[in-house]
């Protein structure tokens, strides 16, 4: 299949789970995703045992909600990121996060395969840009996106002055923004 060459592994697995309830694909996705999710959630401040519980919950949510994944609208990794943040917060706060209503298709835009490819390209460029960031910048951006933390809390935790934190986040985001037209 030609789509295997152009879609990321994650997208291919997720579509196989969505369309065919493919357990082997889900198992492969688990092997790739679960350790990254666990590392990610631990760096959000969760203890390893809780982190593993959240990983299991997130993976089960992916299996159950795969039908809602639409590659025209979001990259697989972005869709999974939001599930991971939502489940983590719901479990900790015991209060469901408010989730926006779905908006229908933009009347001007017919969904087509080129949209999926554009999102896939964007995801690839973003990953490359993140890997090229200065380690300081990457750490700060990670904390902003994975930590349940405000800039002030990041500053308290790292001992860096708030101005330094903000400028590192800004510099890092500036590098990423070039890769991502939607980021204002």
């Amino acid at each position, binding site marked *: 299949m030609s789509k295997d060459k152009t879609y990321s592994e994650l997208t291919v697995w997720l579509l196989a789970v969505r369309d065919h309830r493919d357990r082997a694909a889900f198992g492969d996705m688990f092997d790739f995703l*679960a350790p990254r999710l666990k590392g990610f959630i631990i760096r959000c401040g969760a203890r390893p045992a809780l982190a593993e519980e959240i990983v*299991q919950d997130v993976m089960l949510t992916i299996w159950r909600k795969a039908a809602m994944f639409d590659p025209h609208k979001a990259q697989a990794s972005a869709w999974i990121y939001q599930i991971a943040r939502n489940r983590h917060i719901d479990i900790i706060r015991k209060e469901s996060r408010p989730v926006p209503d779905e*908006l229908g298709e933009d009347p001007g835009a017919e969904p087509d395969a080129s949209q999926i490819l554009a999102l896939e390209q964007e995801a690839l460029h973003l990953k490359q840009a*993140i890997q090229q960031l200065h380690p300081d910048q990457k750490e700060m951006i990670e904390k902003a996106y994975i*930590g349940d*933390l405000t800039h002030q809390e990041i500053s308290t935790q790292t001992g860096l002055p708030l101005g330094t934190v903000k400028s590192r986040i800004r510099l890092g985001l500036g590098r990423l923004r070039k890769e991502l037209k939607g980021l204002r």
Partner: protein
Amino acid sequence: MPAITHHIPDPMIAAYASGSLPHAYSMVVASHLSYCRDCQAALGAHQAVGGALLETSACAALTQDAKPKLMAQLDAPAAPEPVYDAAGIYPGPVMQSLKGRPLRWKTLGMGVKQDILFEDAAGSARLLYIPAGQAVPDHSHNGLELTLVLQGSFSDETGRFGVGDVEIGDEDLDHTPVADPGDPCICLAATDAPLRFKALMPRLLQPLFRI
């Protein structure tokens, strides 16, 4: 879809995506996103950054039985989750927070009514009902206030706010919103601190009405 002119600032959308925004504000952000394609696109961008960070995240090994335990759960029936969809003028996030209960409007005087939807140490969210032509009592803010219009419109010193528009008020904003002629104005408002009313009576009533 209404033409929206007052949006959520980008850093607040990032904080919503990452989950660092207090719950009361998240209700307003999610409600605004329910009207606004532009802000949904901005959310998508932040989710893409989050997703890329997740994919490049350092790994932590799982315990050995994690995978077989999970695979064994795949066929277990999921407990049905209640679904609260948008209804009438109220977007999904408002219905989610009502959890199926009917609205309980409490009179604040001069025809103004409120229904407190959520309250915790970090802030509160409420629905406000303001009859056409009526002013919300003159007030300024201790902290950050987000006000999203769900029906009708209001105007104040800074402009006009229609359905889907969100006004962001802070310590510096000393304003008098007045509901425009037409339908009563219904808003979703989130604050992190009690509003300070200038008139004496409303201030005395503040503890009573928790506004």
